[in-house]
């Protein structure tokens, strides 16, 4: 599977990321590093601990990383969650549902990247 196919599978925008980074070799390198990125795990942990300050920050970081890599699908869901968490109270309705969506897309993304890189 090529990088383009991998992007397609995870709902990313390969043309956009190439257009910004101007270097094909950088894309698989960053994608690989995404596997080590801690922001999703921190987000999950923070929500479990009801630490909404940390939760907002991690969601925000995850969203930023996805923006950089043009992981559009994961960006959309993490952006939604970031906005729900922005007031740092955890009182906005729909947070667990939004988190569920993030988890679903995140797991799928990781899976596909692993598949893509092993080829």
């Amino acid at each position, binding site marked *: 599977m090529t990088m383009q196919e991998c992007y397609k599978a995870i709902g990313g925008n390969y043309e*956009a990321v190439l*257009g*910004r*980074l*101007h*270097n094909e070799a*950088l894309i698989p*390198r*960053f994608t690989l*590093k*995404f596997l*080590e*990125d*801690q*922001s999703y795990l921190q987000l999950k942990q923070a929500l479990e601990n009801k630490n909404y300050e*940390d939760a*907002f*920050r991690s969601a*925000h*970081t995850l*969203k*930023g*990383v996805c*923006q*950089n890599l*043009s992981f559009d699908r994961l960006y959309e869901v993490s952006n939604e969650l970031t906005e729900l968490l922005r007031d740092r109270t955890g009182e906005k309705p729909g947070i667990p549902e939004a988190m569920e969506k993030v988890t679903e897309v995140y797991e799928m993304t990781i899976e596909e990247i692993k598949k893509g890189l092993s080829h």
Partner: protein
Amino acid sequence: MDKRQKILIVDDSKLNREILKEILGETYNYLEAENGNQAIQMIGENIGINLMLLDINMPQMNGFEVLEIMKRSQCIAETPVIMISSEDAVNTMRKAYELGITDYITRPFDSVIVKKRVQNTLGLYMNQKHLINVVYDQVYEKEENNNIMIQIMSNILGSRNSESREHILHIKTATEMMLRQLVKVTDAYPLTEADIALITTASSLHDIGKIRIPEEILNKPGRLTDEEFKIMETHSELGAAIIKDMDFSQGHPLVHTAWEICRWHHERWDGKGYPDGLKGEEIPISAQVVSIVDVYDALTSERCYKKAFEHDTAIQMIMDGQCGQFNPILLKCLKELSLQLSKMLNKEMDDNKYSHEIQRLSNEILSDKSLPNQIYSQSLVKVMQEKIDFFKSNSGTNSIDYNVVSGQLTILNGKQQVLCQRNNPKFDLFKEFGVIEEDVQYIRVLLHQTSVQNKEISVQIKATVENKSQMYKMKLHTLWSPMKKDVCIGIIGYFDIIK
């Protein structure tokens, strides 16, 4: 040594930091910080950071708090900051610019654009620093030449009259100090930096008329007769005449100011001076200032007809009107400068004497934009030295080191083991050591009274250290910003058991 420019990347996401490093390439030397606290600490430790890339949302201390600290400590002028964030709300961006950032980049970013913006920012700062250095060199050369000319002149006068050599240099220094103080305490005399420089230079000429006074009167040991005194007094008119007779354009500000000073530096506020008996503000401020510092220096120097008075006595004599009446505002300035003047007598002259002139010229060139302070790093070194000196003389006891800017506090015992370390501003230190509330209040009051002139306080308090509760004597020494007036930047101290 690595000569590449240093970029500090502050972002809590490792991936984001790596992306930036990849994009910017090997041209630069990178430092990384995961949060604001680390960033502030690194700025404090690595003096030569050329650029900071700063994220907003981070744990412990966010990007805005970092900027606020940098603004307070003035190092934002030294280190340009580019903020990188996915926050694109106008308010957020405006706030960042108001706190002094140079540029704001929103995610997702284009790699070429980020690279260019980083290059441009570094380039601008390099140019600005280069410009300051050019100005510095030129001012230095100009001032050196100026000083050499003045020294030659002082020596010529001094060859006839042994008093003049140092006298002229003292007058020059004290005149500048007084003028600066004057502008600080009142708006009544709107003197620009250029005016101050002009009057200061012209002050060197105040006694040139003495070249035409016969040597036996000039160097007579003991009191002059009335007649001799009359001749001596003509030196002010003679000096003014020398300047007038020269083939200068009399409209030139330096020539005009020098003339005023020569002629009127023996006038007095109440009209009882000479040669014209001018009164109050009829006497130009240039001549007023030179006349009061002239009297001060004459009193504190040894002359062929008298011994030197102590600094305090001299100030008191001037205040009491024993040397004629002076403008009350100048008396006030003189009193406020007392300490600095006494240092001048002991030849502890300011080693950065051209900084004002450099700042003025630089600002003029960059059309009044205030510049990054090239002496910021040097000043930091000075504060470090002050710390080292303090601890050197108080070694072997428990020591305290508190940085007001970063909130970093470290307490060590005599064996250099850490008793307490924190960087949380809300931490209650006194509670930790079991100090009672009354003592805490007392220390607060005393600390509040410290100033640049009066840096140290000593108290006796009861405290619990390493599980032992007993009386301690504690000495605290405040550190002050070398750049900004009345800004405390740190507290160092030690405490020891009362035996």
